[in-house]
């Protein structure tokens, strides 16, 4: 899971062209939301994560999953487990 979180943080750094560098110690609730990404960058982030991990965000996904590195990494792990089951 830590590896996924590190990958997610790198995506943030890449899509913000280095202007936002997440703190590896901040992974809990609202840790993504607290980065202050605007709507467009948040969308780019989600699309890039879909491509990177081969997942699709479900429409009924709780907002909290998209706002936290930990919860997002857990969701990605679960999605991959389903895909490879």
């Amino acid at each position, binding site marked *: 899971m830590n590896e996924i979180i590190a990958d997610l943080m790198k995506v943030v750094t890449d899509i913000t062209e280095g202007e936002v560098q997440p703190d590896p110690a901040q992974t809990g609730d609202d840790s993504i939301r607290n980065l*202050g990404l605007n*709507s467009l960058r948040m*969308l780019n982030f989600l699309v890039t994560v879909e*491509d990177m991990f081969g997942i699709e*965000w479900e429409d009924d996904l709780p907002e909290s999953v998209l706002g936290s590195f930990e919860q997002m990494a857990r969701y990605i792990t679960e999605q991959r487990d389903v895909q490879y089951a």
Partner: protein
Amino acid sequence: MPTLDDTRTAEPADARSTTEPAAGAAILDVLRAAAGTYGDKPAVVDSTGAGYSYREFLAAIEAGAAWFRDRAPRPPVMFVPGNGPDDVVALYAAITAGSVPLVADKTWTAEECARIAEATGASAVLASVDSALDRTTLPATDSPWPKLWWAELGPTRRNERLDGIGFGRFTSGTTGMPRCLGFTQQAAVNAANAWRRSAELTDRDTVLCLATLNNGLAFNTSLLSVFLSGATLVLHAGRPIPSSIARSIRKVQPTVLTAFPFVFDGLVRGSSDIGRGLRLSVSSAAPLSPETADAWQALTGLRICDYYGLAEVGPVTFNDSSAPGSVGVPLHGVEIVIEPVAEVDEADGRGRVLVRTASMAARYLDEREPFFADSLTDEGFLRSKDLGRLDEAGRLWLVGRLGQVVNVAGRKIDPTEVANVIRELPGVTEVVVRGEQSASGELLAAYVESTTVDRAAVVAHCRGRLAVYKLPQRITIAGSLPRNAAGKVNSSALSTIGE
């Protein structure tokens, strides 16, 4: 209640048949005529298929109007819609009741909404559960629509500028907060007719709208124009993420798709099988990249058309994709003039775009200056902030903007509003906010003078007070900003901070 399948299996009427509104017709008259003609055909549904037939739509609006008459203390009311069929019903119900809904952005924070309510005298708010507003902070009650809640606001001053006004829409403004433009119902009907003609909408069309209802792209191309035509409006029920949108497109199989450029950018990155039945793709609000246009054509066989509209005047031009890079020719009833401006080289005919339409706003609904009339010429043309030129075929080409409004992926942002918010942060002594280029397009940059605050503090402060799309993405903090001899911040030296 109809389903999406009904859209495709309903007996098609004459492909060119439309509901022509009589001159001076109010919106309800248009919808009443449409209900008489199209009856059980789906009028507005979400991408799961839930929604209203034309007959149900009219009945729901009339019932909703009765509710507004009973509950709304006085006009105007602030309306913060989500993106579903009930939101459309509530909008027209409020207009029909004379409640003058001011159609706000669902990402606006409570603080932003409170400032606007104060400026406009809004007596109540009807807000989506999907909005950024927290109903627990207001004396909120349920409304007839499950995903909309209602709250009366404290005493505000009576708005004396509502004569003849049916509804309000917002523009980013340039004076530190969005401004509310008041429109007559006839202006909405005229806007819808202008777009319906250019897009050749008919009762065989299914229009999938991916813009939020407050936005001009949705308001002018995907609401009343659809109902005038007897077409079906489908509202995307999921997140604005390309994978979710692609699922909607496959399910709905629209004939018309309206979306912002960044949606097309996302859709061409890995979507497939989404072009079936599509006859018209419309983009707006920001430039579309040639690569995306080419990829979309490869994916769907269609070029993406451009729509250009202004909050103050409604729909302006339409490019049927025959002239890439242009925003096209004026819509029916639209007049465009290019006015020379001192700071722009006139050699190739460039100048300020002046526009006159039959769908113009009547006035601002607040008392602040400048007044709307100040932005009009003696002949009634709006002096827009856009720079452009007209070619020999009458097509408009936009070449830049006057003033400081920043366009981030189609969302217009007033830097003054953002700077004012950051300036409130204790420890901040000066702020400059402006648009800057990045590898991915224009972004909002904030230069903050402070010895005590850090980036996290600025972000946290802004998040509670500004809509997400207004958050500055490039934040530079310095103990002192570069200044000229007169003590004013030297803008040209800002980008060298830290070098």
